């Protein structure tokens, strides 16, 4: 039945997803990506059938960690020999290889089963936008980012800043220089 053969082929085809990890928390996005790798985003999901998808993560250099985790969160590794324990803080871990944090988070989110490594092989992570051409050709869909990236003050244009309404009125007859700090600098408000 050519129609059924082809229809079945497409339903079970592996879909390639793109995920922009800019300003996304790796832990939360790890849980989301693991769903796609397992194939839990498809109504035809079943545990045995390997109906997972491919996920291509870009901008993994610009992931965002909560509060002060870059400094406080440590990645533990032990060589097995005496004094082999090492604690690398998250920022150093990220500096060594920007793709490892998000890979580690998806690994933790996946069930600790034998097929986990084969699933992880379907996760391609790139530190920035530069993705090889043949990978781009495969991508067909996008995973919705959960966090909207904030804008820095430097990224705002001049007139945007000017047009923004002011929230308070200066006190009457106030001399701006009274704001001088103790060490007598002149305080300029831009």
């Amino acid at each position, binding site marked *: 039945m050519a129609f059924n053969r082809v229809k079945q082929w497409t339903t079970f085809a592996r879909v390639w997803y793109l995920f922009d990890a800019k300003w996304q928390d790796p832990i939360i996005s790890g849980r989301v990506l693991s769903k796609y790798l397992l194939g*839990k*985003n*498809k*109504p*035809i*999901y*079943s*545990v045995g059938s390997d109906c997972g998808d491919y996920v291509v993560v870009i901008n993994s250099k610009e992931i965002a960690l909560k509060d002060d985790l870059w400094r406080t969160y440590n990645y533990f590794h032990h060589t097995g020999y005496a004094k082999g324990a090492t604690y690398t803080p998250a920022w150093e871990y990220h500096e060594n290889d920007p793709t490892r944090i998000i890979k580690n988070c998806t690994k933790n989110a996946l069930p600790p089963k034998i097929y986990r490594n084969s699933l992880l092989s379907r996760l391609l992570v790139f530190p920035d936008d530069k993705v090889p051409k043949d990978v781009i050709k495969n991508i*067909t*869909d*996008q995973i*919705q*980012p959960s966090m*909207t990236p904030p804008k820095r003050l430097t990224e705002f244009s001049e007139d945007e800043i000017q047009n923004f309404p002011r929230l308070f009125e200066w006190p009457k007859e106030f001399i701006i220089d009274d704001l001088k700090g103790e060490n007598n600098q002149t305080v300029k408000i831009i």
Partner: protein
Amino acid sequence: MVHLTNTLNRFGYIHGPHRIYKRMQVFRFTWHYYGRHRRCYKLAVQRLHKAWLHATRNRKMKGLLYKEIWQTRIDAACKEHGIKYFEFTESLTRQNIHLNHAVLNDLAIYEPRTFKSLCNVAKQHIVNTGLYNLTLEEPEGVFNRSMFTDELKQ
């Protein structure tokens, strides 16, 4: 050493069916076990009873396992239409649409359009009654397959 069994046995010979038939009843169930558990009666019968033990327990668990699989599938299907599993089932039950998970699961797989209309029904109900605050519209900057495919409208 004196072999007494033959002498004693002459009078007390037990007539009855061959011992093999009782054992074949067991081997019927253990033909696919591993190694001697498949052939030797003493081991086979132990493994068989343990298997039956598991069977009775799993008979109850089977319902739960199916419910779990159905939940993930319905959740996946709902997410494609922008609604979560919990909101979907909650609003269906409140609208007195008593479709159980088995039926919803089949609809999700084999009748995608029916399931889509069911999702719309649920969404409309949620919006009307203000059950949950649904983020219905697509976030900007995300385009997906449904934006391209032109379904045949007939």
